């Protein structure tokens, strides 16, 4: 493998030229001055995608009418259905079940297991394979106050502080109180957490924690948790999993309760009606909407489908204006695009540099400020580096790490990243990486209460599709926790509800028709079709020949 192109190698020489002096200064403890509070606000306002006026617009229809949100989100909220309601025969259901769960990631699977425990029949419909999700991608860990010197009290404070005190208190209380129960549940199912020989759980700090509370399973915590949950679900006869069957619309009954969904078989292109007594939405995040063209760390199916479904049925969303960008996503080589480069790299002393090998910011600003600095350097100052595939980025000077901490530190402290670049001929202990902010997490989503109930009776929601738990900003390690806590809570709550609710009242798609009329009334005639289900990366020259 070739590593950097000759052109990029030429540019790296500039980085190498300034490195000895930069390392010298770093040894003396000198660093690029952090921004003042005023500058921070200004940089954020001018360059952070969340603060910029452009790229946002007002929502014209539905429960969040009047809110100003990123264009890509507004476009899917103000969208038309994939189906023509009048062509669907709601008189007979193709499938019936107690609880329909939409989305087979961590939240959906946790909900399914709890519902099964409570004796309910479950259909788990998911878009890709069971487990193809953001959950499987989480590397860092999961928070829970399991140690003696910690408690849910301190966890609560950390979560609130991280979210700038905008979080919904009752959701945070549920999150931190259930957290130790979640770890216990996972341990019991056989998750291989990192432990000391006597069984004590190993824990680390994460950004914004006052106690070491981050539990992990190697550097693939999410994958380990997801595969164990999925394996357990396969052992349960009452959980029927339907893969490649995304939900495209919710079904209501004449009493205004949520009673099922329409599923779409991605392969045969058939639509199925599923009748249920309760529905749990667990469709995850929206990274693949590529807000403002940003690459993303998210999986292929993260296209905001659940938001669209619930919105059409009249359910409000909150905090969707706050998107989490990770400041350092890889932009080179192409196969690593979007790959997360952890904060640890900067924590170990690697600096961010422009095309001339100059520092332009303090490397440990808060995530959002750091992102703004990088965007400014590339788009405003014009000193970014262009990759052969047309991406732009700045250098992250990882070779400084070995110079500062001794030969071999990179390999020891960042084994996974070292291998991921080595595979493509780049030795990050000798050559810098190219990075740019990447779209990472959907802070906001569907409004829920502490049981995962939405404003629509019979509709529950859990996980990244919901908003409020993390307020405007999530701390690392709290979303794996979030999906399991609220996945379990919705599974239990929906199971109770199913015991009470009678199977009566015809099914209807009138909410969809009403939404279409609302679009028309607002003068929105060219509305796109959503949920979009799968992102489309077909290049333009191919698209031009497809005539569709």
């Amino acid at each position: 493998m070739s590593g950097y192109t000759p052109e990029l190698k030429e540019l790296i020489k500039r980085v190498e030229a300034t490195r000895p002096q930069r390392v010298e200064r770093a040894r003396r403890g000198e660093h690029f001055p952090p921004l003042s509070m005023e500058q921070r606000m200004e940089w954020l306002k001018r360059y952070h995608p969340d603060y910029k006026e452009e790229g946002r617009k007002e929502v014209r229809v539905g429960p969040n009418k009047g809110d100003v949100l990123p264009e890509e989100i507004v476009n899917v909220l103000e969208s038309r259905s994939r189906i023509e309601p009048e062509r669907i025969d709601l008189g007979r259901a193709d499938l019936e079940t107690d609880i329909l769960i939409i989305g087979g990631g961590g939240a959906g699977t946790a909900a399914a297991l709890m519902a099964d425990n409570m004796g309910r029949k479950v259909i788990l419909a998911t878009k890709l394979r069971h487990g193809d999700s953001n959950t499987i991608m989480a590397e860092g860990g999961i928070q829970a106050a399991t140690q003696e010197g910690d408690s849910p009290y301190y966890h609560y404070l950390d979560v609130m502080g991280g979210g700038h005190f905008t979080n919904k208190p009752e959701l945070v209380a549920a999150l931190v109180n259930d957290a130790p129960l979640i770890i216990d549940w996972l341990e019991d199912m056989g998750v291989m957490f990192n432990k000391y020989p006597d069984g004590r759980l190993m824990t680390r700090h994460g950004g914004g924690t006052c106690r070491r509370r981050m539990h992990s399973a190697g550097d693939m915590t999410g994958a380990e948790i997801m595969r164990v949950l999925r394996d357990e679900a396969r052992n349960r006869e009452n959980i029927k999993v339907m893969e490649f069957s995304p939900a495209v619309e919710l079904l209501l009954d004449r009493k205004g309760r949520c009673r099922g969904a329409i599923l779409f078989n991605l392969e045969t292109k058939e639509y199925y009606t599923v009748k249920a007594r309760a529905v749990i939405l667990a469709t995850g995040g929206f990274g693949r909407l590529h807000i403002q063209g940003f690459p993303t760390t998210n999986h292929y199916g993260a296209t905001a489908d659940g938001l669209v479904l619930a919105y059409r049925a009249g359910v409000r969303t909150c905090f969707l204006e706050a998107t989490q960008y990770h400041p350092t996503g890889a932009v080179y080589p192409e196969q690593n695009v979007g790959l997360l480069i952890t904060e640890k790299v900067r924590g170990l002393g690697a600096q961010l540099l422009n095309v001339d090998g100059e520092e332009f910011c303090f490397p440990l600003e808060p995530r959002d400020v750091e992102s703004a600095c990088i965007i400014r350097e590339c788009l405003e100052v014009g000193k970014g580096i262009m990759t052969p595939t047309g991406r732009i980025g700045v250098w992250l000077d990882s070779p400084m790490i070995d110079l500062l901490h001794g030969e071999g530190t990179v390999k020891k402290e960042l084994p996974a990243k070292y291998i991921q670049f080595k595979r493509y001929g780049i030795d990050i202990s000798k050559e810098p990486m190219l990075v740019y902010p990447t779209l990472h997490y959907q802070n906001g989503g569907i409004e829920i209460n502490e049981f995962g109930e939405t404003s629509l009776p019979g509709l529950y929601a859990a996980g990244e599709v919901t908003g409020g738990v993390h307020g405007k900003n999530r701390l690392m390690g709290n979303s794996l926790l979030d999906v399991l806590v609220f996945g379990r809570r919705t599974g239990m709550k929906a199971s109770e509800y199913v015991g009470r609710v009678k199977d009566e009242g015809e099914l209807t798609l009138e909410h969809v028709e009403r939404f279409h009329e609302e679009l028309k009334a607002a003068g929105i005639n060219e509305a796109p079709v959503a949920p979009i289900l799968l992102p489309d990366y077909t290049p333009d020259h191919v698209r031009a020949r497809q005539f569709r």
Partner: protein
Amino acid sequence: MKEEIKQLSVGDKTIPPEGAKMIPIYIMGREYLVPETLTILKAVEYAGYQYVRGCGCRGGICGACGVYYRIMGDYRLRSGLACQTVIQPNMVLAQLPFFPVNRPGYNMEDFRDDPHGALRALYPEVFKCVGCGTCTRVCPMDIDVMDYIALIKRGNLKKAAEKSFDCVMCGLCASRCPAQISQFTAAMLVRRINGRYLTPKAQHLKKRKEEVESGKYEVMLKELMAMPVEALKKLYMEREREPDLAPPGWMPQDTSHL
């Protein structure tokens, strides 16, 4: 510079720069010209396919994108993950988005007393491995699959669990096994047995669980929930931070809210 910025690739769509070198690859036998340096996954998309199967995380961890390929003129059959493997000229490829495997159902309780015996009863075929090493050669995660199978046979389940930990369950090993073994489904069970029975339980967790269930923290949390934001901010600023290198079992000065 401003002009060039328009070139910024949108999301994952590949926009090759002017003059990018194009190379031929053969997707299931049909030739396409694609820009070099792409991964197989992105090259296939560049050719005009929209994935339904065979694509999940796009980051090398979900195992949806197993792929077999040969380079024309070379007899060797190679394998990898499509999202992690860079294309080469004259690569002839087919993805393996699904492969039928054996995964019998079970109850974790069955493995409490005699895990090795119970495993043998559930997966007898695993004990018929002929030691050909094909699985180890095809594994895109560089796992010594044959070795973890041997460890399972010998009853060293702990070692087998650790050795198979990086498995992304792509199924490539199972697709080539002459003994018809589904190696990775057996390994999944072995890891769960290890996590549940072969590793000591966390005692501090048991205790904390009881405390939570007794409702101890609900009282404290109610107090915080009722607090005005300013008071909460004050508590937040005054938190005592556990030192990074404190020994396990560290205790803070203020133990009134533990």
